[in-house]
């Protein structure tokens, strides 16, 4: 078993007791709530005559179904309107803060937590969404839960869990030009598989991780679950603290920042910590990476050939054959040149200000290909406002992108933003499952924001390094 890792320390600090099942009862420091997975939990609570136990440790927003175009109420989609109304009803008078669209703070739950400073090191954070692992970028222990567990947290402020193993993933070296955090995590999942992390929490470390800003760390932790790991984290450091100092929580309260800092320092992984497993990846060898199939583990570097299913481990062959048929790709080819119809820049993985800046810097002076429908969906209202203040919206619009309101949007196609028919999408999101983006014949190629920008311009999957003036921000 691991010892002395951040995971061990945060787990211990939050353990209430050992349950008769052998699970530990963990106190939840921050419970994030959205409209899709919470209504049934609030319903169960009411059925049992219970109240929200720790409303001040709970924060709600709306992201999954919210329209990214016309947001006049009632929403044109009745189902979306009823979910929104249900959430409003559930939080009203409960003491739960609600970042609703009128507040100017609405956004994807994994974007607003970090930007408001709700997300802090050494916390336990849960949400009814598997990408809650995002918050691990701050050195929090953060994971997705199901609706019955949401009921648990609402009613008791706790979750029942078993402690997992810890795998350190050390990414060494410096990233090459045009290579981003997204490429690191796609590479990791490609190497370790979509179930390689089951039973593990991932600690991301090494020079390439330390060099990343918070946005990049969030992109990596976000996709831990795509590798089967329910949680992933990065130890807090000066980069983390600089971000925190600019958030609502601390910008006007330096004393509180100084008061909490020793706690944050104390939960960092010890130098002599023991791990259950260690994996080392050469960051300098990573190239812009994309998916060729229908799981986030079916990845290849942009110059690498798509594998022959017969060369894969036996258990992966059938999935690979089906994926290649769905995507209409051939072993031996590279993904470079794969025609795309849609470019989607958004999602909890990659819709933060830095992502938009990088993509905009590339797009400036270029035009979206005539055959491509391209859209930018900022991660939150604050991201949108900040981007507009810098003129990024104009850059995107002039290039031919649609500039939309914040939400999950085409990552999972629960609102009007969906693929149609067999459209192929260059997407900065996190899942390329069949049907994920709203059309069961749709085809998704996952990649970094800057690669999405390049694909939008050329109309095909493109090695951004081969385009002129690769921008770095």
């Amino acid at each position, binding site marked *: 078993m691991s010892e002395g890792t951040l995971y061990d320390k945060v787990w211990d600090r939050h353990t209430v007791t050992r349950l008769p099942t*052998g*699970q530990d*009862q963990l106190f939840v420091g921050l419970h994030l709530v959205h409209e899709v997975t919470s209504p049934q939990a609030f319903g169960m*609570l009411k059925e049992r005559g219970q109240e929200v136990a720790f409303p001040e440790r709970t924060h709600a927003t709306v992201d999954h179904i919210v329209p990214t175009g016309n947001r006049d109420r009632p929403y044109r989609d009745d189902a*979306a309107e009823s979910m929104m109304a249900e959430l409003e009803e559930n939080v009203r008078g409960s003491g739960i803060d609600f970042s609703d669209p009128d507040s100017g703070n609405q956004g994807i739950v994994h974007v607003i937590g970090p930007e408001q400073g709700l997300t802090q090191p050494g916390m336990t954070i849960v949400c009814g969404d598997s990408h809650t692992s995002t918050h691990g970028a701050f050195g929090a222990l953060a994971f997705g839960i199901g609706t019955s567990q949401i009921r648990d947290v609402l009613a*008791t402020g706790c979750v029942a869990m078993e402690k997992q193993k810890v795998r350190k993933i050390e990414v060494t070296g410096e990233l090459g030009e045009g290579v981003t955090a997204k490429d690191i995590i796609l590479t990791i999942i490609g190497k370790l598989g979509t*179930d390689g992390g089951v*039973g593990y929490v991932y600690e991301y470390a090494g020079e390439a991780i330390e060099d990343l800003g918070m946005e990049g760390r969030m992109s990596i932790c976000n996709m831990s679950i795509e590798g089967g790991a329910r949680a992933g984290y990065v130890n807090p450091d000066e980069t983390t603290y600089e971000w925190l100092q600019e958030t609502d929580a601390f910008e006007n309260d330096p004393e509180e920042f100084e008061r909490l800092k020793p706690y944050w320092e104390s939960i960092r992984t010890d130098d002599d910590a023991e791990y259950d497993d260690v994996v080392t990846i050469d960051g300098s060898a990573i190239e812009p990476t994309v998916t060729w199939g229908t799981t986030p583990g079916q990845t290849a570097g942009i110059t690498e050939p798509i594998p022959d299913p017969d060369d894969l481990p036996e258990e992966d062959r059938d999935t690979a054959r089906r994926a290649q048929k769905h995507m209409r790709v051939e072993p031996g080819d590279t993904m470079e040149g794969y025609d795309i119809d849609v470019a989607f820049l958004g999602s909890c993985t990659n819709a933060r200000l830095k992502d938009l800046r990088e993509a905009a810097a590339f797009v400036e002076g270029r035009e979206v290909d005539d055959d491509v429908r391209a859209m930018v969906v900022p991660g939150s209202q604050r991201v949108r406002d900040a981007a507009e203040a810098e003129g990024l919206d104009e850059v995107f619009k002039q290039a031919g992108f649609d500039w939309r309101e914040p939400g999950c949007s085409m990552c999972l196609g*629960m609102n009007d933003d969906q693929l149609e028919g067999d459209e192929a999408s260059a997407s900065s999101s996190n*899942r390329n499952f069949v049907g994920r983006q709203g059309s069961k014949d749709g085809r998704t190629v996952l990649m970094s924001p800057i690669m999405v920008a390049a694909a939008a311009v050329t109309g095909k999957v493109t090695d951004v390094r081969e385009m002129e003036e690769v921008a770095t921000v």
Partner: protein
Amino acid sequence: MSSPEFSAGEAPAEKVTEVSGTGIPVRGNDIDTDQIIPARFMKVVTFDGLGQFSFFDQRFDDDDNEKDHPFNEEQYRGANVLVVNANFGCGSSREHAPQALMRWGIDAVVGESFAEIFAGNCLALGVPTVTADQDDIEALQDYVEANPDAEVDIDVAAETITYGDTVIDAEVHDAQRKALVEGVWDTTALMGANEGAVRETARSLPYVPDEHVSGDEA
């Protein structure tokens, strides 16, 4: 605002020591939650009626014609033991996935391996996720296909699966087995009993202000 007292809401969990019934095989590794229930069917505020949408896009084409899928086949109507392969339920945390399967009629899922959140969500519903070796699972899938009316018995406590003359050594994760067999899988009730200790833990955390914790005066 002080936190309210945890009220004594109770919904005692039933003991789930065994599940018996006919089987239904759904083959393939990495069957994700978007396949089990596409996101568009999650625009609901209750889980009622989700059963009919299980594997919807695998079962129907664009014109709503039935495609080949076990969940469409007459011979498996009434089956309650789902037999799957590796990494079943990967992807999102949506409890809608096991809810849909349960409401379709599934009482237990047997497979080579499960994604963690999916297995946890099943447990919260009292649905065991039982694992066995690849060869044993494939043999069971073949058997169920050939004998759709034959009974499959899962003994959760003894960790075995019995069909025909065959007994498979299976595995039910320790905590899950204990929770099901002893009927302590309703974690809300279980954890609600420890209110004092919860508040003590919360108070010990430097980032939790006292006024978020104290429920004493409530």
